[in-house]
């Protein structure tokens, strides 16, 4: 099988802080790959580099054979992403947000309309499709965001904590839809999550990142055998320790840090 994601010696530094430290991994086509790690381990920074919105300090990333730095538009055609934090337009309705996405990703009109209806019904927002997103609750926004990420069926789907803050019912619905997409359309899924039982149940392979380095890779069974534990959660804690991590800086904090570094303030 082909490697649809190839990451070689990837490093990202913010000033003196090394967020991602020389990591390498591959994801095979059609695989469901979980990228796990404690808060601030470098998961989101890695996903940002994979999805072309952050430039690596060093190293190479290939998505579907395209180098993300040299051929960003072609790389972007190959993936879809559900972000960890909000990325909806509050002043548009739920339907308009979906439509905007569908047009940008060139989903033909008929497929677009029927998929929007199907997905909005799946996340139970069809009744509210004409409401402005600014009137939605946090959970509704999250559901809309996930539905939007599934609208175009890309070759690779990045999901950065897609089920964070969702109830078990919705989580199950969304995962069964994603698994189905993976099976029917051979979409490769790359996701992060803090729910270890989710990763154990769904992922074919898992990589665990901590302090910017990948400390373990393999199938959930392999990781359990290696650490002599009963579940992925136990394996995860054994590998990364019990210590609680500091929350990862958001983009604005990081921007401030970068400015401080640049101007020596």
């Amino acid at each position, binding site marked *: 099988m082909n490697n649809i994601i190839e990451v070689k010696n990837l490093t990202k530094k913010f000033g003196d802080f090394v967020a991602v430290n020389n990591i390498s991994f591959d994801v095979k086509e059609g695989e469901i790959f979980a990228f796990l790690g404690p808060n601030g381990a470098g998961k989101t920074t890695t996903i940002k580099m994979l*999805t072309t919105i952050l430039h690596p300090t060093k190293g190479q990333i290939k998505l579907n054979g395209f180098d993300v730095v040299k051929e960003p538009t072609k790389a*972007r055609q190959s*993936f879809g992403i559900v972000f960890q934090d909000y990325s909806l337009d*509050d*002043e548009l309705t739920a339907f308009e947000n979906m439509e905007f996405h569908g047009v940008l990703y060139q989903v033909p009109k008929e497929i677009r309309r029927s998929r929007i209806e199907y997905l909005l019904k799946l996340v139970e927002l069809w009744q509210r499709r004409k409401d402005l997103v600014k009137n939605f609750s946090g959970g509704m926004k999250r559901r809309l965001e996930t539905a939007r990420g599934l609208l175009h069926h890309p070759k690779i789907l990045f999901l950065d904590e897609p089920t964070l803050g969702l109830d078990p019912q919705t989580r199950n619905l969304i995962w069964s839809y994603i698994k189905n997409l993976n099976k029917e359309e051979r979409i490769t899924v790359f996701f992060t999550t803090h729910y270890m039982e989710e990763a154990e149940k769904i992922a074919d392979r898992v990589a665990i990142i901590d302090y910017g380095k990948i400390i373990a890779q393999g199938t959930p069974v392999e990781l359990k055998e290696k650490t002599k534990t009963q579940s992925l959660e136990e394996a995860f804690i054994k590998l990364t320790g019990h210590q609680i991590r500091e929350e990862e800086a958001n*983009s*604005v904090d990081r921007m401030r840090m970068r400015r401080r570094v640049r101007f020596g303030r």
Partner: protein
Amino acid sequence: MMKIYIIWLRQIKRYFRSRSRLIGSIAQPLLFLLALGFGFGPIFQKAGGGNYIQFLAPGIIGMAILTTSLFSGAEIIWDRQFGFLKEMLVAPISRLEIMIGRTLGGATVAVLQGMIVFLISFLVGFRPQATFWPLALIFMFLVAILFCALGTTIASLLTDIQGFQLIMNFLVMPLFFLSGALFPLQGLPQIFIKIASLDPLSYGVDGLRASLIGGAHFGFLADFAVLGIVASLFLVLGSYFFSKMEI
């Protein structure tokens, strides 16, 4: 094309949904039009300049377009803060297309604002006389595109809205006051004319005035050429900085 259209459409929808923005950005030009128009009117008349409202209205239309266009850059910063920018930046669409869609959207909104000011000035006595008045629309669009591109360029380099507003206020006033929107450039000291000829808005106001009431200072062709060249330059510059943006 559809991608550019949907980006344009988004901005138009946002504009019509935000009434406070509509009214807020009309208030200042209206104040200038009424206070200066009626305040300086008699003196202007005595000095042999003719009807001041006639002279002033094209300048104020230019001002409304200038402020609306420049501040449309702020939307990029809002989009960044609310996360929507990410949605656009990961989409399979070139930065240039995003830039074009945004600029056209912002420019359309600015021209609409300009038309509203035009209608209001008509109500207070402005009567276009020149026969080239359809040309005014072209000049309005050129000015709008130029300053939208400049606003986008500046917004791409900044991350906080306060900084953006500070820079904008610092830009808007000199651009407006030095453009000859309020007074004729003829007969001014050479140094002042030189400075005014460095201000792209001067050519916009001149083109608008020439097409609405006649009597160009720089001439139609010069106005058109300068606006076109500077607008293209800012578009290229804006696309460059926009493409360098990271989240």
